[in-house]
């Protein structure tokens, strides 16, 4: 089996339990909060989207952990940096898709619990698209920020954090959402906003790979 | 087993020669393989191989292809001859030098040997 696939599988195997537990606790917490909210307030406020927005930041952190924690380990088992990054990217994409499915799903279920109407398939699809793009952007931003520091040290990496965060900045500016998952302000039409974010993400993916492909393998996480 | 002051392959060769002289290894006996020797004495196999190669060159051992190395039929006699030649220069002369330095006369040495103090 090829090395990239092995990287993906190992990372999934290692981090899946943590992610499932975290997500599980989130979901249970939101369901309890929703039930309580439905009893005390009318109309009940939505809680899910407050919480679900955090998923994208998790994904950014996961990217940081992958590089800080796992790159060294994989080079030590004879995997090239590029294969590691490709394998880790697949995990980022899979996690992004999983969250992008989970967000509208949870939102729809919350609407149903609150007995509300107005959650259409179109809303769901929009939330899916926005979450997917935001999660990918976050993963790549985290990855690029960490790659810069890994390759060039704290100061060099600090300078590179600005371009690294571009994808995250793009989604924050062009795809801002409120606590109910509605887009607040639209400077650009949705499709164009999504495209701009994806282009920024793709560009920074290239930056991140360029930074890491010649990196010296450090003796400890980032030291 | 080995000291680190002279090449180990020479020490290996010497110890096998000693075994042959003492009769521990008899003619046409198979000696340990290079790997067995290396594992037993915890040394690099290349070093052991070099020691064996020297013994083959000197005719103490001979090779049977695919089987191993054996003690040459005339090894003991040959080694004895060599050591006997060296005995007077290496052992007796040195002893006499020492005796002269510390003031022991040849007569005393002869007496010691005849007296059979052994």
């Amino acid at each position: 089996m090829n090395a990239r696939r092995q990287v993906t599988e190992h990372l999934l195997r290692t981090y899946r339990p943590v992610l499932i537990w975290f997500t599980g606790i989130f979901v249970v917490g939101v369901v309890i909060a929703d039930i309580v909210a439905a009893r005390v307030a009318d109309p009940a406020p939505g809680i899910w989207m407050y919480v679900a927005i955090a998923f994208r930041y998790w994904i950014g952190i996961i990217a940081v952990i992958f590089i800080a924690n796992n790159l060294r380990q994989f080079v030590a088992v004879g995997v090239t940096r590029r294969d590691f990054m490709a394998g880790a990217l697949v995990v980022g994409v899979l996690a992004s898709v999983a969250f992008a499915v989970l967000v509208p799903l949870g939102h729809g279920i919350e609407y149903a619990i609150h007995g509300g109407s107005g959650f259409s398939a179109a809303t769901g699809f929009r939330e899916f698209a926005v979450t997917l793009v935001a999660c990918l952007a976050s993963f790549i931003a985290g990855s690029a920020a960490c790659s810069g520091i890994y390759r060039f040290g704290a100061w060099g990496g600090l300078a590179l954090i600005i371009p690294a965060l571009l994808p995250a900045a793009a989604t924050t500016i062009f795809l801002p959402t409120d606590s109910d998952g509605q887009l607040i302000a639209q400077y650009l039409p949705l499709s164009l906003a999504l495209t701009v974010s994806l282009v920024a993400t793709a560009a920074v993916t290239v930056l991140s790979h360029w930074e890491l492909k010649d990196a010296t393998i450090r003796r400890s996480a980032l030291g | 087993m080995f000291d680190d002051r002279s090449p180990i392959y020479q020490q290996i060769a010497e110890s096998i020669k000693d075994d042959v002289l003492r009769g521990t290894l008899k003619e046409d006996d198979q000696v340990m393989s290079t790997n067995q020797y290396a594992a037993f004495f915890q040394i690099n196999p290349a070093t052991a191989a070099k020691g064996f190669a020297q013994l083959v060159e000197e005719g103490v051992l001979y090779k049977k292809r695919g089987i191993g190395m054996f003690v040459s039929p005339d090894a003991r006699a040959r080694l004895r001859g060599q050591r006997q030649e060296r005995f007077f220069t290496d052992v007796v002369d040195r002893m006499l030098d020492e005796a002269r330095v510390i003031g022991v006369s040849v007569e005393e040495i002869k007496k010691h040997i005849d007296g059979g103090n052994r």
Partner: protein
Amino acid sequence: MISLRDLTVRYGATTAVESISVDLAPGKIYGLLGRNGSGKTSLLSVLSAYRKPSSGSVTIDGSDPFENRALMRDIVFVRDALDAVEGDRAGTLLDLHARMRPCWDAELAAKLVATFELDPRKRIGALSRGQRSSLGVVIGLASRAPLTILDEAYLGMDAAARMAFYREMLADYLEHPRTIILSTHLIQEVADLLEEVVIIDRGRLVVHEDTDTFRSRGVAVTGAAETVDAFAAGRAVLAEQSLGGTRQVTLYGALDADERRQAESAGLSLSPVGIQDLFVHLTSPERTLEAAR
């Protein structure tokens, strides 16, 4: 064949490895010897594709190992820090190697784990220094990589564990010959296992030769000061000490039979120098390399 050409590694203003050129034939056990900070780890890091050289090159069978999928899979580099996720269990790390290393020997790994009394359920961060080293040795040997590099793999191991390490390494090498590079400064313990020694000092190559040849290089000459000085003139003197009118010098370079006779007839006494002493003299801080040449 491993070829280093003018290999140089710099960290900012410090030069860790300076223009080293050396060829290592495959299938041998090499000792890379040098004092702490002599550049051993930097050199090995380039060899194992952990870093790029500042200048010069490393090739293995003609190819650069850096980011080379096929070569990196066949190189195992165990360094003292042990490149692992601290929170993982020892067994998880072994499983990962088992999946990734084409020649992994699970049976050998299990045997070594038992020999070193390692608990695979223990988290790596919770292992003692010696246990970490043992885990590194298990990985290094069971990977059975065509190029196995063990960088000071014995740190923190007690004498019994070190002996077990050397014994197991030799036993597995005898069955599966491959290129093994051991970096160490405890030469005495491993000298007999090494086919060739490579000595570096302050980033520079000092010696690369057959261990047995190197072993016979040193000779200590003792006698009356003037006689010793006369004999030592023009030779590489590694160390000297005097007591009253008696002087002893440590010379580098084997003496031939004529030179020995000449020394003995001048009333000098000659004695061999142990391999560890020879190394210490060759790399002592007050020495300059050029004098050894």
